[in-house]
């Protein structure tokens, strides 16, 4: 996890920077162009180019390696120890590719849907894409925070300007909740920074001031400091994820925001990514200590989300609560702190990026046809739209975690990991699977099967080529991961391995460091700090 492979050696040019900022450049380009038609064309081109550019990340990734790859590192604000440091490892690489792919799909989807303020929409979308990519590739905490926070602006506009009913409330709620979490996260970052500074200045390490993840990972921390860090980072990620007590914005936003925003929010798991990327490695002991709490929160999320979803009459609300439930799974997996759990959590995040996003796309398809998503309004759609019904079913199966689909792999690994942590967690988790199957299948049964009860549903178009172009890749991926997951697993294994090692080894390592330092230089961390100069 500490090694780095520089992009210069691996691929020869600054690939990550290019991938990250290409959408932003596209946004600027679109701003400069007044014509809507051209804006679509350019938007599509940029999204496609970005996706294509990100593919080398996947294919040229060094397998089973814990190292950071495609790393670029430039000094930025040396006086504060802030640098431009980007790179991907097994944890983040798949997210980058997923993001660019979803970005492309969203552009494809939107072209048929969005009619007002097209340029603004595309600009917001691309800006959002850049910030999300930035979050995934940043290895400097300030850089990470920069992207994390800037994400709010385009998100806000996406929801506020292109959302549906209740968007005013939803947009402001989303922004406020997220910001509240992230400013608290900033405190955590600051604590890390100060901790590193203290450690580095005592041991005369260079650089003394650093927000660099690599440097921070080298800094040993006492348990109570770790707890502080963990708690503050937790707020940031938990609000974003969202983990259950902090979830209330999610249904509002998913309901009121545009489909594209729902796809992004539900599909790209920034919050849980943050846990894996930062919380676990930076505060391993604290993570272990927090395991029961987090597991219980995860379980509550699973069951609560599933239970509420079961009662929803609106498909998007259903999806929103199912998302919460799924995120509970991911949390369950990650915080089991077992190898399989983390692995499963990661792969499940990718899976959700495909399936939940797919579900939302389909919700969008339905919405475009009927302008409603109330389940009772549908029924017997399979008759008129066999293609839609089929693809929909596949995605729903994936979401339920039927074997052969990607969902199975993820859920299996998660539950396996949870069982390893404690059988109670695993057993409770399984309950969620059943509930999940129940609400999705019940929905499918009500909406797609059965008789056509509403005349409005009689003459609906089946999937258009554009919609097929969205559905097909998703379904392909579902089966690919479900049937042959090893390319994906090989890409994440190295990092997961390293993380797992760190989580378990640091127990001894930190203990050793403390005993080593206790007599010598490092004062007990409980006494606070010196003046940083």
């Amino acid at each position, binding site marked *: 996890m500490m090694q780095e492979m520089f992009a210069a050696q691996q691929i020869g040019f600054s690939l990550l920077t290019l991938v990250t900022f290409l959408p932003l450049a596209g946004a600027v380009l679109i701003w400069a162009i007044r014509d809507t038609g051209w804006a679509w064309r350019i938007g599509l081109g940029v999204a496609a180019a970005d996706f294509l550019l990100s593919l080398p990340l996947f294919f040229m990734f060094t397998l089973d390696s814990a190292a950071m790859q495609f790393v670029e590192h430039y000094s930025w*604000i*040396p*006086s*504060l120890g802030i640098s431009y440091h980007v790179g991907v490892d097994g944890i983040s690489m798949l997210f980058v590719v997923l993001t660019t792919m979803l970005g492309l799909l969203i552009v494809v989807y939107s072209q048929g849907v969005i009619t007002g303020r097209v340029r603004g929409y595309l600009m917001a979308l691309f800006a959002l894409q850049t910030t999300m990519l930035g979050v995934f590739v940043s290895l400097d905490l*300030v850089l990470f*925070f*920069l*992207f994390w*926070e*800037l994400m*709010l*602006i385009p998100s*806000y506009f996406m929801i*506020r*300007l292109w959302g549906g009913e209740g968007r*005013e409330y939803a947009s*402001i709620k989303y*922004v*406020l909740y997220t*910001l*509240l979490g992230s*400013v*608290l996260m*900033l*405190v955590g970052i*600051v*604590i890390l*920074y*100060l901790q590193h500074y203290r450690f580095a200045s005592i041991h005369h390490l260079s650089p003394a001031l650093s927000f660099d993840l690599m440097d921070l990972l080298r800094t040993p921390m006492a348990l109570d400091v770790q707890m502080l860090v963990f708690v503050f980072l937790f707020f940031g990620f938990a609000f974003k994820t969202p983990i259950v007590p902090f979830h209330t914005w999610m249904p509002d936003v998913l309901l009121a925001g545009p489909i594209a925003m729902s796809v992004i929010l539900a599909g790209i798991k920034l919050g849980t990514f943050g846990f894996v990327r930062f919380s676990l490695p930076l505060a391993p002991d604290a993570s272990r200590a927090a395991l029961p709490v987090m597991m219980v929160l995860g379980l509550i999320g699973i069951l609560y989300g599933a239970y509420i979803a079961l009662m929803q009459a609106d498909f998007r609300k259903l999806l929103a609560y199912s998302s919460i439930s799924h995120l509970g799974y991911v949390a369950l997996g990650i915080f089991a702190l077992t190898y399989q759990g983390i692995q499963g959590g990661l792969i499940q995040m990718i899976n959700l990026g495909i399936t939940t996003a797919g579900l939302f796309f389909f919700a969008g398809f339905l919405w475009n046809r009927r302008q409603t998503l109330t389940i009772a309004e549908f029924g017997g759609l399979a008759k008129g739209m066999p293609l839609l019904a089929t693809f929909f079913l596949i995605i729903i199966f994936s979401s339920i975690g039927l074997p052969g689909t990607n969902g199975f792999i993820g859920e299996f690994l998660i539950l396996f990991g949870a069982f390893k942590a404690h059988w109670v967690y695993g057993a409770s988790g399984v309950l969620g699977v059943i509930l999940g199957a129940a609400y999705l299948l019940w929905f499918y049964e009500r909406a797609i099967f059965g008789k056509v009860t509403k005349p409005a549903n009689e003459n609906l178009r089946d999937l258009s080529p554009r919609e097929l172009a969205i559905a097909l890749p998703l379904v392909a991926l579902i089966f690919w991961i479900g049937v042959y997951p090893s390319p994906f697993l090989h890409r994440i294994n190295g990092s997961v391995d390293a993380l797992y090692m760190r989580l378990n080894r640091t127990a001894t390592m930190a203990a050793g460091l403390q005993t080593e330092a206790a007599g010598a230089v490092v004062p007990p961390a409980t006494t*606070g*700090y010196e*003046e*940083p*100069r």
Partner: protein
Amino acid sequence: MTLDQHLLSIILFAPFAGAIILIFVSGERLTLVRTIAAVSSFISFAASVYLLYAFDYGRGGFQFLEQYEWSKDLGISFFLGVDGVSVPLVLASSLLLFAGIFVSWHIEDRAREFYIFLLILASATIGVYVSLDLFFLYFFYEMSVLPMYPLLGVWGSHTKGYLEMKDTAKRDSLAFIFNFASNSKEYAAMKLTLFLSAGAVVALLGILLTYVGTGLHTFNLIELQGHEQQFTPFLRSAIWLLLFFGFASIAPLWPMHSWSPVGHAAAPAAVSMLHAGVLMKLGHFSIIRVGYWLFPQTTKEWAGLIAILCVFSIIYGGLVAFFQRDTKYVIGYSSSSHMGYIFLGMAALNMISMTGAVLYMFAHALATGMLFAMAGFVYDQTHTRDIPSLGGLGRKMPFIMGAFVIGLMASVGLPGTVNFIGELMVLAGSWEPYPVQTVIAVVGIAITLAYLMRMFMGLFLGEMDPKWAHVHDASPIIDRLPLLIMIFGSLYFGLFPTQFIHVISSGVQPILEQIHSAGAVAAARGGG
């Protein structure tokens, strides 16, 4: 290097010279008047940009010194010099002045007088930042307060509460001092002037006590330094508190803030910009320059007080801002809330937080300058600042809307703006001594976002009242230039703050060394 020798004089006196020239120009010739104002402020601006890069932060200390005997009998000399703390503030002042000239370009009623007052206001503000003589520091300090009176009174506007007030007898009664929401512009101006003058004389008492107490018969800040031990502990605490509360009233710190939102609301846009941007920082700056610099040990003893009060500032200002209907009230309270961060940074007494505090002063100047400029622009177009009666203006003024987003980002302290860097440093520095306050301050950021978003939505989104059909976007050059300058400054220094950080820390370092060594010396004395 004659330019360097007189650089500060140029920065200080260019606007002032502009004002004097304007006195002799006919008020009828509007273009000429505006041009003179713009040119003189541009000279100052350009020179202060040069100052930033010419400042040798490796050497630190006070630079670009200029000293002229002024009155030997009183021990006063006209002594100019800047250190790292003043450089950014000088830049902010001249930048906001330059921007303010353009923001107020459309003023036609007695424009000449307006510019004269504005230029005097700005040059006096700069004067505080560059004075190394305690007398002149106060001289310019007080001088900067007074132009606010006519600027608010003549070119300002009544607050909404005032216009809605039916009871005319109550309107202009002396009770205006205790009336915080509905003041006419005259009384807003009066209140502001009186409060600030009251603060100033409190500080003046502290200054005089210092002057007399050292017995050096000089107001020279450099010579006065290091004589703290001549005072009894009670006396120096008293002096410090006088200085602190005197200067903090302009900042404005929480219990002394009531003049500020009213003043902001009544002021024309350019004045609000300067007021919130740089005038309020006079308080922090003077506390650092006088209180911290002359009384390091006392500062250490009382820093906790600042940390407590600033939290009230942050939270109170934020919450009140949330419930305002008037755009300028929102920004005004937000400013007074944000001043709390600077105080927090100052209270922590370490390198990173102090540097952050000073950087934040600069950052806030730009951010709030932008917001006020835009609030002023909207007001000029619609003649109302009432948020509920506005809405949907985004379609009519996309540029302003875009700029507002950036101003909002900056004000909240989102990364990429220089505010973020300042905020980050303040938090980093203050976490260790004041963890609770830091967390509360961080929550304050979220509150900031809440009320600014609310205002943003109220102004630019939603349904547009048909009566605003006539409004138009910012004109290409005159209206956009000031905003673009501020946006550029905010983003540029947000992405490349290194120069600033070096410069500021070179100025902060000696002050902190004094503070920490003073404690050590006192401890050693106490022990010995």
